[in-house]
């Protein structure tokens, strides 16, 4: 018995202090006012005021678009990798690992160098008279979506590469011998096998985009209204700080994401069986 306590005590201590207690307190604080009394006003504020509704809408919208773009490109990318020589595949996986971890401030800064107001893209657009490039702003919604694809694509590829590799070339050859054509093969054999992985990857890309703070903050400061940015501005100790309100918003976020990811797991497990 004593050794079990010794085993679990440090683990539980770290998880309680570092994660569980803060999350529990966060959920409770969402139902408290600035004075500490019970109230639902944080929630009525979030769902009642346009500003917070817009933050939720913007977050959902940007994550949906970035998720879809990321998914489509990473399906192509993961497929393409499996068609290359084994050695090249290994090198590419290093590259995509690297690209996926290059998110946040360094990514934002690199993009500002290229697409910022004094950047090379603006100079090119000006010299070559490319209107859409000249008008493109990395600090806008489109700019943020572009920025997100820099980590969503490699992340998606890393998730899809292993299942894509499972698909054997011989299956396709066998199907050809049996008289199937390419599109029939993809539709009836490949898609059903990969669908759970594709759903799973999309949910991860969506959730990952929803929770992205660093890249957005580094690009737009507190100017773009989204759930992470609004939470950040409510807790950064500035004049309009309102931690209980931030707690309510964070609770909504965590609950919705947990349900989404768990539901996704459910669907996938059922399909796999």
């Amino acid at each position, binding site marked *: 018995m004593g050794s079990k306590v010794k085993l679990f005590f440090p683990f539980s201590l770290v998880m309680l202090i570092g994660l569980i207690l803060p999350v529990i307190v966060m959920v409770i604080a969402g139902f408290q006012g600035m004075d500490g009394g019970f109230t639902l006003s944080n929630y009525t504020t979030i769902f009642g005021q346009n500003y917070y509704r817009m933050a939720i809408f913007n977050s959902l919208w940007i994550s949906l678009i970035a998720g879809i773009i990321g998914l489509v490109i990473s399906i192509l990318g993961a497929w393409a990798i499996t068609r290359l020589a084994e050695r090249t595949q*290994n090198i590419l996986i290093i590259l995509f690992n690297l690209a996926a971890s290059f998110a946040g401030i360094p990514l934002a800064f690199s993009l500002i160098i290229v697409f910022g107001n004094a950047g090379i893209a603006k100079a090119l657009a000006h010299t070559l008279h490319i209107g859409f490039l000249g008008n493109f702003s990395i600090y806008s919604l489109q700019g943020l979506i572009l920025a997100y694809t820099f980590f969503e694509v490699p992340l998606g590829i890393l998730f899809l590469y292993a299942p894509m590799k499972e698909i054997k070339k011989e299956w396709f050859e066998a199907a050809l011998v049996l008289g199937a054509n390419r599109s029939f093969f993809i539709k009836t054999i490949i898609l059903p096998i990969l669908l759970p992985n594709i759903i799973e990857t999309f949910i991860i890309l969506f959730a990952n985009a929803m929770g992205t703070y660093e890249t957005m903050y580094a690009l737009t400061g507190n100017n773009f209204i989204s759930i992470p940015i609004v939470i950040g501005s409510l807790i950064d100790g500035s004049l309009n700080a309102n931690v209980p309100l931030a707690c309510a918003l964070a609770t909504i976020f965590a609950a919705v994401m947990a349900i989404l990811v*768990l539901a996704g797991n459910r669907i996938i497990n059922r399909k796999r069986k």
Partner: protein
Amino acid sequence: MKAHSVDKWLPRLIIILIAIFLLGPIVATFIYSISTVWVKTILPSGLTFKWYGVLTADPDFIPSTLRSLILAVAVVLVTMLAFLPVIFYANVYNPNLKEKLRYLSILPYSIPGIVLVTGLVQLYGSIPVPKLLILILTISAICLPAFYQSLNNAFMGDDFRGMFEQAQLLGDSKLGAFIRVVLPNIRAGLMVGLLLTFATAFTEYVITNIFLTGQYETLKIYMYRLMNTNGNAASVLTIIFFIFLGIIAFILIKIVSSQKRSTKE
């Protein structure tokens, strides 16, 4: 015949396009870091390495690197001491617990940094507690899912329970048996887990910045400040940061691929 040639060039084209897309900004940042001036022109005005000197001579550069390093090493230690024994126990003795630990994988997506830091500010914001210590514990907790997943595969295959118990029969203490018999056999998975943990802690930004209100200036926080004050020096730092991530990614792949080779043999 036509389908065959498409099979050859299409994958290459896709990969080349994706690689150009992903690497483009990094290449541009590198050129920016060795440019004298590069503002509103297609090509830089001239080339120089002076910004590398400017950054390394900056009195804040080394301290912020050290702060990130201290944070990362502390998190790695906590992970080793607090998590590793429990993951071993769950894998070898308690499949029920293992089933529960599986749910950890949803953690990073349902509770990202910006959500967790809200709870931290609410709970610890106004009471006198060692906030740096709490930050270390919090980042350790965040690293648990990836650490757990890297170790899971390591525990498959060998009969760890048998090895562990036989070593104890032969007179080893529990700790001794663990260090002498178990650790060498999970070396590769452990290394992967620790490297991922190290990289996560070293590059953490949002929790460190908001919870410690910018008081503990890590490399990322320094990078953000530099980005708004000296763009050229910031580009040098970005390149150094990229090389650092590259080295970690490279080691990871080396470990994983040598592991694959040895299991094939």
